[in-house]
């Protein structure tokens, strides 16, 4: 029988046993609902950038509607203007929440008039209306003094607003993407890497490993385990990403960056690489332990490395995606899975750098696996307490 069939049988067993477990199904369903909910709920509850409904009482001064709309446009606040024929009708609409505010301005602009809210005043909306009224009254007086309205209007143009490095909506969603990606990779590595760790310890504890290893090579068992659990991890990640993208597109809350498909592909690739690296390390550390508590102690250094890499990514690299820290971290296998997708989300990494980083990480996985598999083989059959890596390495035989 080929080794690969043996590896695949191990992987398939992990997929079936764990994939059917209530815990896994629950976590997939729960995270998916959480993702969809976090996109859909705000839309359902608050709507997106809801227009302020402004009731105005007729007769209104000429140009009020236009002035309000123009001012609102400057503040990026959508408005909807609802005219009423008398103040009582307007107030009734305000009381029954058909409008958010009522503006009553004398048509001859003899006084500034009044703005009424149902309860709390919305500062932005009241500023918009106030500015419009003040501008109208000012225009009225100045026009009476014989100033050309066109000149006046030109004089009232606000300065143009600009920024040296404008942050677009695409930038915001990039930032969000990068952060969510880094969190997903961290959570994925932890939850599925630790599944490998506990799986190894459980096999050792239940002594089934002796029966398994009578036919399966230790290396193949470790590989199959990492593979099977990794496939579940990818399934969960893909479900998660599809749910998030679907919900984002449906609710129209974010502008998806143009590079979304390649960013998602890169996210999956680096999830796989990061998981393979860390779960291999966790798998053989698990084999050194004889109980689960020992295993989690033994895994502390790996956990620390993952956490440090994550923090380097979300603090140092997000601040300066092309900086020295970011460049160095790209070629360190432990941090690359966090750093590369993040830099890619900011378009701050070249294809060549990504390729080199992937090669370096794959090589590191291969080396770690070669060492790890031997230690695993030496340690997994020893049940007397915690083993040292050196002893396990020596006692490994094949």
């Amino acid at each position: 029988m080929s080794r690969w069939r043996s590896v695949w049988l191990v992987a398939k067993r992990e997929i079936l046993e764990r994939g059917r477990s209530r815990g896994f199904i629950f976590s997939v369903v729960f995270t998916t609902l959480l993702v969809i909910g976090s996109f859909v709920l705000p839309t359902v509850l608050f709507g997106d950038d809801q227009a302020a409904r402004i009731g105005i009482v007729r007769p209104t001064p000429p140009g009020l509607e236009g002035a309000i709309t123009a001012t609102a446009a400057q503040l990026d606040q959508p408005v909807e203007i609802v005219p009423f024929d008398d103040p009582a009708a307007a107030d009734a609409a305000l009381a029954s929440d058909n409008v958010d505010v009522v503006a009553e301005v004398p048509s001859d602009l003899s006084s500034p008039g009044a703005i009424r809210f149902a309860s709390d005043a919305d500062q932005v909306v009241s500023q918009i209306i106030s500015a419009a009224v003040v501008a109208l009254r000012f225009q009225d007086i100045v026009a009476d003094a014989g100033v050309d309205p066109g000149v006046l209007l030109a004089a009232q143009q606000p300065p143009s607003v600009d920024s040296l490095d404008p942050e677009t909506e695409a930038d915001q969603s990039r930032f969000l993407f990068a952060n969510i990606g880094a969190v997903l990779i961290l959570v994925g590595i932890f939850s599925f890497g630790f599944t490998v760790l506990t799986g190894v310890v459980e096999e050792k504890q239940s002594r089934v490993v002796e029966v398994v290893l009578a036919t399966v090579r230790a290396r193949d068992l470790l590989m199959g385990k990492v593979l099977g659990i990794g496939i579940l991890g990818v399934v969960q990640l893909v479900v998660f990403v599809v749910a998030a993208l679907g919900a984002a597109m449906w609710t129209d809350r974010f502008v998806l960056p143009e590079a979304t498909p390649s960013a998602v592909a890169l996210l999956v690739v680096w999830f796989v690489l990061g998981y393979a690296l860390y779960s291999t390390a966790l798998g053989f550390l698990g084999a050194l332990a004889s109980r689960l508590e020992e295993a989690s102690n033994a895994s502390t250094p790996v956990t620390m490395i993952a956490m440090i890499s994550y923090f380097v990514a979300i603090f140092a690299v997000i601040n300066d995606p092309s900086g020295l820290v970011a460049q160095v971290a790209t070629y360190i296998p432990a941090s690359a899975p966090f750093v590369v997708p993040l830099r890619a989300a900011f378009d701050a990494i070249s294809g060549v750098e990504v390729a080199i980083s992937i090669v370096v990480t794959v090589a590191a996985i291969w080396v770690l696996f070669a060492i790890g598999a031997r230690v695993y083989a030496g340690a997994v059959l020893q049940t007397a307490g915690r083993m040292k890596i050196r002893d396990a390495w020596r006692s490994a035989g094949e």
Partner: protein
Amino acid sequence: MLEIDDLAKRYGNVVALDGATFTARPGRVVGFLGPNGAGKTTTMRCIFGLARPDRGTVRWKGQPVDRDARLRFGYMPEQRGLYPRMRVGEQMSYFAQQHGLRARDAEAASARWLDRMGLADRAKSKLEELSHGNQQRIQLAVALAHDPELLVLDEPFSGLDPIGIATMTEVVHERAAAGVGVLFSSHQLDLVEDVCEDVVIIARGRIVAAGAIEELKARSGRRHLEVEVVGSGGAWLDGDGSLTVLERSGDRVKLLVADDVDLDGMLARARAAGEVRMFAYEPPKLSELFMEAVTPTSPGPDLEASR
């Protein structure tokens, strides 16, 4: 044929195997006996590549054992272990597939063996839901489902009830009749005497006796002579310092004699003492052969192995 050739293995300062050599033939049931720590489990682990011997080889059909050969072996380790939360039927099928069976054949084989073990209705149960004895049966079935050419069972009888022992014995005989070589270790020597044709006795990592039980008995210089002389109270032996009395109860005495003892002479002496109701000349029991074989002739260093 399985050949164990000059296996040696140390764990730190503990000598587990010290040049163990023996063979197990197809169709023969070999009892692998030895005190705790004598090296039985280590030998079995070496057969399955679970321990790497410092010296020596394990050969199957003349070739050093490799993974392909091991696929044709069945193993029931001393420390039983299966996946506690995996369903019984799927579990058996999984192990059969790991031994090279196609999925469909593996499922058929596991169904067949579950039926044989009387557990056909538990195929969908998780292993941990089964009683201890039934888990043992599954463990045996896992060792058997791929129809191995060699069966290695480490303490298969421990923890089994009499029905389980009967099933185990029946299966072992049936497999041997089908040409399978069976090697099993046990401390229950009476059972071994019933089940095996051959025994291999190991002590302190070395084989101290090996062969067919009947031959070993015949070769042994010891014999038992049990004599009952009515009304004698065994007094007819008194004063003879050359005889070793093993047991004395009422008129019956049990003597340890050499195999060249003068039986006619003994019978004559018994007759002279009274009416002889019983005069039985027997080879020693396996347990005595065992004790004789494993007792060190000279006190050596403590080489007791931990595994």
